[in-house]
């Protein structure tokens, strides 16, 4: 379970460029729930995700994983509970290490590295088996440098890596945004499989309203650092992209025009 209490994040505090990225976010995600997070650019989606992961320190408020208060814990200390996949396919893996070396790192996520060999045949067999699920032929390329793989392949491996070590929480940060539609669909399929199989608590940030409604069981929209609506259950099941857009327009009582066309392209 993830619980955020009155979370505030301010960048460049006290400077002319001060930005209130999060302004009092209260969000509880029960164990095993898959929440999609939408919002326009600068709404605070990624800030929220990165604050939960520990990359960004909150200015005010608290974060709990289950009953444990992790507000003060640095990112590395939270990796026992959290697995992540980044938007940039290059960010989630080391380009100049091999596929198996990358997987070995993920296999040791949240544990202290020991002086045992990082790779052995038993591990290779595990990695091979996992890679064969992708049907990309990567199981025969264990010793290829990660940098030689395509963006889609790298993202697929990142995704597998996030599930190598048991964790309770999976944070997906627009992890299909940088991929072509076909690969994006494949990645989304594998994500859903892994999430169902491991019963993960998931928070997925996305730019696409279609994706936000099609996946998970709950959708949250952020605007200017606040949650402006929170949809689940039956109500959500009947929602279409255009309903979301209406809701979005209503919630913005300043009557501003929607300036982010990415939001309108509901693919």
């Amino acid at each position, binding site marked *: 379970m993830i619980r955020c209490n009155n979370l505030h994040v301010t960048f460049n505090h006290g400077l002319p460029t001060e930005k209130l990225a999060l302004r009092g976010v209260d969000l509880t995600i029960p164990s095993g729930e898959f929440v999609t997070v939408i919002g326009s650019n600068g709404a605070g989606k990624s800030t929220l995700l990165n604050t939960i*992961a520990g*990359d960004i320190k909150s200015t005010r408020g608290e974060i709990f994983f289950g009953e444990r208060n992790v507000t003060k814990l640095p*990112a*590395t*200390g939270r*990796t*026992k509970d959290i697995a*992540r996949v*980044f938007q940039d396919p*290059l*960010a*989630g*893996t*080391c*380009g*100049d*290490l*091999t596929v198996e*070396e990358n997987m*070995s*790192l*993920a296999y*040791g*996520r*949240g*544990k202290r*590295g*020991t*002086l*045992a*060999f*990082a*790779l052995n045949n038993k591990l290779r067999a595990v990695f091979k088996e996992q890679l064969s699920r992708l049907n990309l032929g990567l199981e025969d390329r264990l*010793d290829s*440098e990660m940098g030689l793989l395509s963006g889609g392949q790298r993202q697929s491996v990142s995704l597998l890596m996030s599930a190598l070590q048991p964790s309770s929480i999976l944070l997906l940060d627009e992890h299909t945004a940088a991929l072509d539609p076909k690969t994006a669909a494949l990645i989304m399929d594998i994500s859903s499989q892994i999430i169902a199989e491991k019963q993960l608590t998931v928070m997925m940030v996305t730019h696409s309203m279609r994706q936000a409604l099609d996946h998970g069981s709950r959708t949250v929209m952020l605007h200017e650092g606040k949650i402006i609506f929170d949809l689940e259950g039956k109500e959500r099941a009947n929602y279409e992209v255009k309903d979301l857009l209406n809701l979005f327009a209503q919630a913005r009582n300043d009557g501003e025009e929607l300036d982010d066309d990415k939001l309108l392209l509901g693919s």
Partner: protein
Amino acid sequence: MSVFAFLGTLEIGFIYGLVAIGVYITFRILDFPDLTVDGSFTLGAAVTATLIVAGQNVFFATLLGTLAASCAGLLTAWLNLRFNILHLLASILTMTALYTINLRVMGKPNVALIMEPTILTPFEGMFGLPDMVMKVIFVAIFAVIAALLVAWFLNTQYGLAMRAVGSNKRMAQANGIVVTEKVYIGLALSNGLVGLAGALFAQTNGFADSTMGIGTIVVGLAAVIIGQSLFASRSMWVIALSCIVGSILYRVAVSLALNADFLGFKASDLNLITAVLVALALVFPKLRSEWKAKQAEGNNG
């Protein structure tokens, strides 16, 4: 080149092989260009030589020289990690400070070890080998063992985590690797190896001198680059050993250049030769790939 000169070249080649492995760890593994080594090489030599002259056990003296150099690496890492000083600048600051510290440690610019016992003394005359050959075998064993240990280390979970830190900090952190810790350990290890090289150099050559460390970084880099361009491999075992081979080849190239009468070089031209050799080693792989690309173009067109 006489046999005598060749043995001397080999000896120095092996000793600087240790430097090359240290430089490989900072430059290539951690992506942390560390110039501290110019100072820590001398520090290893200065501490060891001073302790030996003071009558301490030679092994103890060598160990302390190595540890002192490790501490210099930690200082550089601290300046960089704690205060965000650019890594190059942090290492230059440590290197500059070490110049004074080395003079203070020795109390004078030069300590002679000619009449003192050294780490080699227990092995002198073993198997009836001449001292010159014995020295080479001794430093070769040191360098190869160090290379194998470092290669083993880099293949462990801990070592792999260190490689990840140099390759992609964000990914490393997302997998629970504490980046700062790996940088501290890496710099201590690297400078320790360089300090050990300094300690061995002082004992095989019979002196420690405040200026002996100048250019250590360039020599180390040259060895790494030569080694890696000759043995392109991903295996840590091959890479670590290729650092030593690179170091020896570099020494051979330098002494050939200095010894070739028709070139007319003097011993004082060493640094220019070094710089040119390193530049060539850096340029060669690029030219080769450009040439290959051109060939491929020709074939297609």
